[in-house]
């Protein structure tokens, strides 16, 4: 297993065009009239035959966008994608996608769903039926041809999704978080089955390009992992996985690789605290993290076996959180100075330890203090309200202010997150009916 710098892409041994080539792809999302949100920044990727490549990153890293650009579902703002040397300019032959949400048509039977792509290509009915049944058989759904998707379990639905993709004889299979909507056991079975089909060469495909946020899944399945940073999405590392198949999760080499990737994905966060989240000051865009999650995480960290310091993969397993959620919570703790992120570990600060020991009221006071000190937006709202004689303001006032600085949705999430934190800390009150934000005045102060 070796780590290559991003720019050093493998040379083409046999002189053929690479299966997929992505060069200098940048992508913006339009946000209002003036500003654009950069989601992909100068991404390069070359994929050869017989490779499984995983695009690994957190939400907002643009990895799903890249997959859609490769599939031709959306054009990149700039840059070029070729498949077998052919420029991609729209949904093309030879590609098939498996969707995270399965995207099965509920009113079509399993067989009709599988035949969909063939019908669109104008394949005659007899041949369509023959090929569809073969694909259904291959994927292990024999006997369910006439079932409707709602009669099937999640795992079986995704098998239909896979059959529908394979039946069009694609050279490249695109998978968008194919197992993330499934429970742990089902996902594992499907991964194993997919690998079996792949290794035995029973699928007509020449390569798989897969998007995931699950580090272990990436290490388990792929030959190469491209690690994406968030905001904007850039490839920050390209990792070749040389472990032999079948891979074993408890193998020390496997664990070491997973740890290494965890460290890489948190590395960028370490130097500047405010750099964790996009934007600075009050325009810092914050994710939705509940105070219950924060408190729970602090408590778990403080308890044995962690005793204040935890390896992120182990912590993720312990608290049963998705990597993305855990990162958000961990980074929020870091922003609030209750914990520090370093080298794939999360360590409680002194304040964090005190928080873990404290009772409810004490916790709220401590949280309030850190909130106002370290979250500029909380301080800003408090300041504005204090200046008003009524000590109240409409949430729309802050919403508008934030929308000048970030996309509308982010503004809403950020504002609600901060208001919820402040409600917990008893800094602010909020009336969801009228949309009024006010200062939470203690009873004694109210009489003054």
């Amino acid at each position, binding site marked *: 297993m070796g780590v290559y710098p991003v720019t050093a892409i493998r040379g083409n041994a046999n002189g053929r065009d690479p299966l997929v080539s992505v060069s200098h792809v940048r992508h913006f999302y339009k946000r209002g009239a003036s500003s654009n949100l950069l989601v992909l920044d100068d991404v390069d990727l070359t994929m050869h035959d017989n490779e499984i490549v995983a695009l690994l990153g957190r939400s907002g890293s643009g990895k799903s966008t890249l997959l*859609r650009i490769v*599939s031709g*579902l959306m054009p990149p703002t700039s840059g070029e994608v070729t498949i077998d040397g052919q420029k991609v300019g729209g*949904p093309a032959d030879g*590609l*098939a*996608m498996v*969707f*995270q*949400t*399965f*995207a099965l*048509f*509920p*009113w*079509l039977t399993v067989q009709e769903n599988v035949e*969909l*792509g063939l*019908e*669109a*290509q*104008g394949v005659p*009915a007899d041949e369509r039926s023959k090929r569809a049944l073969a694909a259904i058989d291959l994927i292990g759904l024999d006997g369910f041809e006439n079932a*409707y*998707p*709602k*009669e099937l379990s999640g795992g079986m*639905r995704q098998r239909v999704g896979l059959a*529908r993709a394979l039946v*069009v004889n694609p050279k490249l299979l695109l998978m968008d978080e194919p197992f993330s909507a499934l429970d742990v056991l089902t996902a594992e079975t499907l991964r194993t089955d997919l690998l079996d089909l792949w290794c035995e060469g029973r699928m007509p495909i020449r390569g798989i390009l897969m998007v995931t946020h699950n580090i272990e899944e990436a290490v388990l399945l792929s030959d190469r992992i491209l690690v994406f940073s968030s905001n904007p999405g850039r490839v920050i590392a390209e990792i070749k996985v040389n472990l032999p198949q079948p891979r074993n999760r408890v193998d020390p080499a496997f664990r070491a690789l997973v740890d290494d990737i965890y460290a890489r994905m948190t590395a960028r966060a370490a130097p500047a605290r405010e750099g964790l989240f996009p934007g600075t000051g009050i325009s810092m865009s914050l994710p939705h993290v509940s105070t219950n999650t924060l408190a729970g995480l602090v408590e778990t960290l403080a308890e044995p076996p962690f005793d204040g310091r935890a390896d992120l993969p182990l912590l993720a397993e312990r608290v049963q959180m998705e990597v993305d959620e855990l990162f958000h919570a961990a980074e929020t703790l870091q922003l609030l100075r209750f914990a520090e992120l370093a080298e794939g570990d999360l360590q409680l600060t002194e304040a964090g330890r005190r928080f873990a020991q404290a009772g409810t009221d004490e916790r709220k006071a401590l949280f309030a203090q850190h909130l106002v000190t370290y979250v500029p937006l909380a301080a800003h709202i408090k300041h504005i309200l204090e200046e008003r004689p009524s000590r109240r303001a409409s949430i729309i006032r802050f919403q508008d202010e934030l929308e000048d600085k970030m996309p509308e949705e982010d503004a809403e999430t950020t504002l609600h997150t901060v208001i919820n934190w402040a409600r917990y800390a008893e800094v602010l009150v909020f009336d969801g*009916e009228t949309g009024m934000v006010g200062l939470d005045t203690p009873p004694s102060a109210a009489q003054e």
Partner: protein
Amino acid sequence: MTMAKPFAGSPIANISTNVATAWPNRYDAVVFLAVGALFAGIVQAARWMHQPLASLDLHPVSLDPWNLPQYALLTTLRMFAALGLSLLFTFLVAPLAAKSKKAERLIIPALDILQSVPVLGFLTFTVLFFIALYPGGEFGAELAAIFAIFTSQAWNMTFSFYQSLTTVPGDLDEAATHFRLSPWMRFWKLDVPFAMPGLVWNMMMSMSGGWFFVVASEAISVGDTKIMLPGIGSYISLAIEQQNIGAIVWAVGAMAVVIALYDQLVFRPVVAWSDKFRVELVAAQAKPESWVLDLIKRARLFSAIGDFVGHLLQTLSGSVSHLSKQIPDAPKVSVATGRLFDWAWNAALLVFAGWALWSVYSYVHAAVGWSDLGEAVASGFITFFRVIVLIAVASLIWVPIGVYVGLRPALAERVQPLAQFLAAFPANVLFPFVVVGIATFHLNPDIWLSPLIVLGTQWYILFNVIAGASVFPSDLSESATLYKVKRWQWWRKVMLPGIFPYYVTGALTASGGSWNASIVAEVASWGDTKLEAHGLGAYIAKATAAGDFHRVVLGVGVMSLFVVLVNRVLWRRLYALADRRLRID
């Protein structure tokens, strides 16, 4: 029972929950005026071509009960012809609105207003217009009746389809693009199936309303022109004229049979069939059932024929699908050109609005003064008051009954179809009984004619409340029992909030229908006895009978204004509130 999901595709579910948008915007004004101008235009045209009407000679309708099956069939045919037209209209107009921003700006407010306007008031104009198109023939009158039914059916169906088109799930949309479905294939494999449950619900609502209109549109007298198309509506109208109560009983019986047959043979199978198009991936507990559908599914010959037809259609649709791929994409225009187009479009709308305003004003003002406007508005308030009071009375009666029934699933299963049946039954068929009663006992028509306007619409309240109560979460009702929440507190804190969104849906529908019904309910006759209540409905009905089109336009305009304002200011706000606060997900 699809009724158990009143939100699923009811016209009200189309309403934006955003309170801020509940107020009429400028497009509303444009369209509102445009519709007025259009109808004023039709009236003018009809007036010019008025002459041949006097000589119109149609087959006389007779009161012989043996004619009733034939009349019922004709009435039903008109109904389905109109439904077919509405469906065609829906499939053409809704995609246009969903695909083109410019078309959307015109179509959506237009539909929104058209579905709340009292179409009954326009009936006379459209009848005259179509008869003038085919002078001397029955065909024109037939077209007029069908068009009248169409105008009561099409808008909410189109709205529902448009709404579905704009909310197609993103992943299915992507899958369709990814597998490169042709536009034709996409329409039939994705758009139509996804829209189906909502569309079926709306078709059913349209049918219920349609029965009311078909009865009203068969026998029309405008000024001295009298048209009687063979059908149940004309039969009833003749029976009223001849004071033949026996014939009316026969007609009611025939109508009941027709509605029951339609319910069992058409509506129920379609609902049961459309259940498979729901996008929930969990199977629902109570699946709609239909013995007719089961029968069709089990009939071997029928399915063989079905397969054959399906095969033919597939081959045909394959070639259409291929053709539809050839349709070139809309030409790309630069941003500046696009903006210029936008600007030109808006300017055109503005000019059109100005012209419409001017033509409505000049038409009405030519014969009608400000005092008439005052009279129309005052009558409007009387009818408004009548509608509100009667909706309140109907609510007091039906909400407790609906809750009682809804909480008992076994009972609800039996009562719900009955309520649906009653809602579909054209209440105007029953009017004569009430009128006879009022005439016999010399009652005050201002009071006793009033219940007629909710006679047909009160059932919407009942079956929506039943639906709401039957899906009330059992954990909530169990915890209410455990905490011993009783009587008034139980109603106030537990049940009323629980059914509120459903109640608002029902009351909104009932209120809209009641305005419409006021046109036929505030003036009634039995032979030579004329009964008349004060109100805008009576104002319009009298103006129609007198052939005074200026006052009809004025009256209908004022009524439209009332309905739209009441919807926007009262019902939609309540609906938004219900959606925001009281929806149990």
